[in-house]
């Protein structure tokens, strides 16, 4: 059992909003590796079931991580699924938490990768406090 302070959670929300939603990301979610949702922010038009999404995302990430080890990699730190309208980008923040972005065709993958790496650095700092 662990908890994160209200101040930490609020700062994380501000970062997700300013750095990711502002560039057109539809939904940004921070989850832990057990599948719990730590923070979730969207543009008001996302109506999917976040709890199930988080459980599947954590499972997916863990499965890919295990595959990485089988082929002799330490980890695949980035996963990306492209859809017709929505795409999903997963990245590892640290050993405990993951950042997931759901975005449409109007956001370029390169720009998103740049922004997520900035966001990860910021969240790492907050998490270590």
């Amino acid at each position, binding site marked *: *059992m*662990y*908890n*994160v*302070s*209200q101040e930490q*959670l*609020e700062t994380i929300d501000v970062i997700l909003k300013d750095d990711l939603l502002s560039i057109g990301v539809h939904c940004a979610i921070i989850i*832990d*590796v*057990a*599948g*719990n*949702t*730590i923070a979730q922010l969207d543009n008001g038009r996302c109506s999917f*079931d976040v*709890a*199930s999404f988080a*459980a*599947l995302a*954590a*499972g997916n990430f*863990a*499965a890919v991580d*295990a595959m990485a080890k089988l082929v002799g990699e330490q980890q695949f730190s980035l996963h990306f699924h492209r859809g017709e309208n929505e795409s999903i980008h997963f990245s590892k923040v640290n050993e405990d938490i993951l950042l997931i972005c759901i975005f449409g065709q109007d956001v370029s993958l390169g720009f998103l990768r740049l922004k997520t790496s900035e966001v990860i650095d910021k969240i790492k700092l907050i998490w270590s406090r």
Partner: protein
Amino acid sequence: MGFINVKKKEVQIKIVYYGPGRGGKTTNLDYINKKYKQRIKTEMVSIKTHGDRTLFFDFLPVDIGKIHGFDIKIQLYTVPGQVKYNATRKLVLKGVDGIVFVADLQKERRDSNLKSLEQMKENLLSHNKDVFKIPLVLQYNKIDLKNQGIPLLTVEEMEQDLNQQLRVPYFVGSALTGDNVVETLKKIISMTLISFRKELQ
């Protein structure tokens, strides 16, 4: 690891149904899903093989109301029971807060129960968790088969095989008819919450 969200005043708890293949883990969740349909806002997520066996996990989120002003969100998972899927079982156990071990009462499944419990202990250790410290409830499932003349193990035999050292609460039940399914769930939730008591106060 349970997560307390102080901002949303919410606690998320992960409970895993573990046990040998075809033992009734998914059937437990199916029953809970049907019974508490009005409290469960979403569909149960199942990742299955073509043969309808659990491939990765089943997932069912249940809201059980407030404790000390916190909304308690229970996340129920099952693991795939088949022997070959141990890597997946290990993944699902990541961050687990409480476990229901669903054992099969059928005589011919005696070995599978023992092997599965042993492997669960090892898998927990790989996550630095001790089976003697984590909230755990045993369910001796399929008592409904008694009326069909199928040879079953006695409760004493089950206790001797599985619970001699653990000394945890157990229920004799039937996931198919729902016998003791809710009681098992209530017990593991209350044991898990007790282990979180300090953090919630």
